[in-house]
């Protein structure tokens, strides 16, 4: 196990893509201490910021302690191992990650799991905007793997999602699943408006309150249960909407009936169909 303890609180943004099991596993303590990281516009060595210790032989397990809100790019492009962060982290956590696991006992910044391809990220706090989304301009977001957030997420979670699953046990901001193509997003509590805007495929499940559904979604059915992944099934009634019709999309939007009585006017469209 490799442990990194932040020495002092940080004043400037830090880019530390080297904090990942891939980069650290075959290095000696001295080599790790001399790894270069950007602090503001200056290059520094890892040991100037962190107290580094190696215990035992499990090199692919890393624990990081301290408030890393200003540290970006932790676990970027990692392919294996386990990275646990005891504290908050900054932007770009696990960007383009290809495997392994990241656990955060704290909050994370924007673009967490940006464009990730595989692996798991579990966050016990809240996370920022653009969860799993690509950077500006790109049109392919998260394409595999799993992100679990026990707190809340901000706007545009799962934008341009290609595959994989995002589970949010708190609430979500606006535009969840913006332009998503495939994959699953599950939101347990309140969801912001414009959920699934421009989606072309995939599945979004909202178990909490949703103020309104976009007019470009059409009601398809009233289901009495919905599957999240594998064998996990929620047994309560859900409205199923299809859309986004503005994009000729075939995405599925499941909205809880129980928490959203104000949406029951949609049911008359379902009945109308039956009469015909």
């Amino acid at each position: 196990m490799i442990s990194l303890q932040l020495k002092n609180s940080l004043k400037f943004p830090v880019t530390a893509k080297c904090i990942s099991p891939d980069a650290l596993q075959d290095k000696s303590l001295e080599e790790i201490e001399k790894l270069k990281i950007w602090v503001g516009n200056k290059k520094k060595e890892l040991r100037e910021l962190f107290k580094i210790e190696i215990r035992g032989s499990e090199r692919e397990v890393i624990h990081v302690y301290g408030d890393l809100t200003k540290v970006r790019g932790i676990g970027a492009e990692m392919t294996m191992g386990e990275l646990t962060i005891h504290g908050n982290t900054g932007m770009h956590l696990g960007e383009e990650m290809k495997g392994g696991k990241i656990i955060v006992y704290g909050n994370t910044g924007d673009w967490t799991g940006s464009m990730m391809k595989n692996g798991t990220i579990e966050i016990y706090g809240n996370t920022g905007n653009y969860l799993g989304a690509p950077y500006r301009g790109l049109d392919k977001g998260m394409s595999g793997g799993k992100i679990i957030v026990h707190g809340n997420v901000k706007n545009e979670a799962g934008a341009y999602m290609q595959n994989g699953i995002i589970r949010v046990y708190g609430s979500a901001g606006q535009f969840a699943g913006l332009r998503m193509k495939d994959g699953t997003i599950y939101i347990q509590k309140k969801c912001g408006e414009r959920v699934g805007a421009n989606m072309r495929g995939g599945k979004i499940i909202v178990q909490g309150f949703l103020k309104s559904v976009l007019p470009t979604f059409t009601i398809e059915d009233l289901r009495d249960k919905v599957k999240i992944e594998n064998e996990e099934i929620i047994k309560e009634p859900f409205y199923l909407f299809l859309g986004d019709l503005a994009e000729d999309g075939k995405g599925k939007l499941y909205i809880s009936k129980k928490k959203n009585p104000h949406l029951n006017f949609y049911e008359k469209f379902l009945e109308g169909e039956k009469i015909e």
Partner: protein
Amino acid sequence: MELIIRNGFVFDPLNKVEGEKMDVFVKDGKIVEKVDECKAKVIDASGMMVLPGGVDLHCHIAGSEVNAGRLLRPEDHFKNFERKTRVTRSGSGHSVPSTFTTGYRYARMGYTTIMNPAMPPLEAKHTHDELNDTPMVDKGSYTLLTDWWFILECLENGKIEECVRYAAWILKATKGYAIKIVNPGGIEAWGFGRNVQSLDDPVPYFNVTPREIIRALCKVNNWLGLPHTIHLHTNNLGKPGNYITTLETMKCVEDLALKDKPVIHITHCQFSSFKGSNWRNLRSGAEEIARYVNNHSHVTLDMGQVIFTNTTTMTADAPFQFTLHQLTGNKWMNHDVETETSSGIVPFRYKRKNFVHAMQWSIGLELALLVDNPWKIFLTTDHPNAGPFTAYPRIISWLVSRKARESTFKKISLKAQRKSLLPSITRELTLYEITIMTRSGQAKVLGLKNKGHLGVGADADVAIYNLNPEAIDPSKDYKEVRKAFRNAVYTIKNGEIVVKNGEITKHVNGATLWVNLQTSEQKLFNEKLKEKFRDYWTVEYENYAVEENRLKISNPINVEAKI
């Protein structure tokens, strides 16, 4: 500064020098007969090719549409960047690089003169500002005159002389180099959500047809005696079956030809050589186009060769861009430039395994190989529409080597492999022909008297490549050719060494080339123009023109116009 380039294999097609071992002398930015051998710096070019600096007559490198492309595509810049060095600035971008980087990349490939082909008159100031910031190369810009209301109105009333006056005025006001025509009639029709389908389809609300516009502007071009011909992007571009339109376009100005001189340049011809009725039965029309061009001397073409990469398409042909947006579902930008023109931008990825893209790749090469005379077809990618200019060395390797073509051919869509004409073509271009296609021919058709050759009096723009034409066989060692053309050993601009071994050694600013038309003053015309400005434009007449002092280095080409 004096320079001697010793013992290189000189290729200078305009002076009929083909790979002769000789010395080239440079003094004060010009090629001269002799220099003082004691004082001069000597470059040993033994075993290397010495060529005139490269000329590119069609690359979108500056202006509002290029800049909008940069804004639209942060992902294009995200991972493709260059750090600053002691002499160069930093920059980024793959298909739409920033201005400084554009200049550096051209210089590294041995190019010294480039032309920006689409400048909406209203955006001329922006275009020239960006050209000012494009270092290392001489540059110019073609003024878009197609669907300018003044021209359309004149044509509607049959006043060709007035049309000539307007054209002369706008070329001078925008510091343009040539007349660019894009989808004549179609751009104006796009203002009403429509397009024109053929050469005889009238433009809505103007009683003129594309045929009349092309013929009129061709006459205007002859009347003014501009150095370049009209530079035309055809109607129906990028539509299956459009080779018929292209042939008709070439035919419609046949009678306007002056002796053997070309009067029309069909640009990025690959996009205009599609046969078939839909995308599924797309075939190559390269054979028919090439046959016509081989038999007529009034036409020149450039390739618009497709490269399999991620790029950005940008043209003034807004209806075409809208079609492309609908086809791909990619993001799209559209702009209407008041009474002048329009434009559109869509990111695009050319894929090997896509039938249509693979056919396009094949058509571009077919055109270049089937047109017998290299003075009639030039190497371009219509940067960045069919691919970035940095791919030129790759195209050169395809042209000089059948083996290189085959190695790419094996990887393209199987259906395209069956339908392509490429396997039947055995021709391999020589390095002499490549020199014509990449510099001498382009300089000739642009009417640049001091560029594209190494005769006495020419501008000392020289490119030296590490390629020994006696030692290698380009058709076998195509990888060597590609490598050599990618990075020039030396690029000399105005008699100064600016690139050495593919690294920029000196930052220089190139001149802006523009046509300074000398016309007789006519007070009445100016009054009328001012009046129309008040009616049609958001910009006042007084604020419209680009002053000469706006250009960092101005290089006017004086032309006596007969009006």
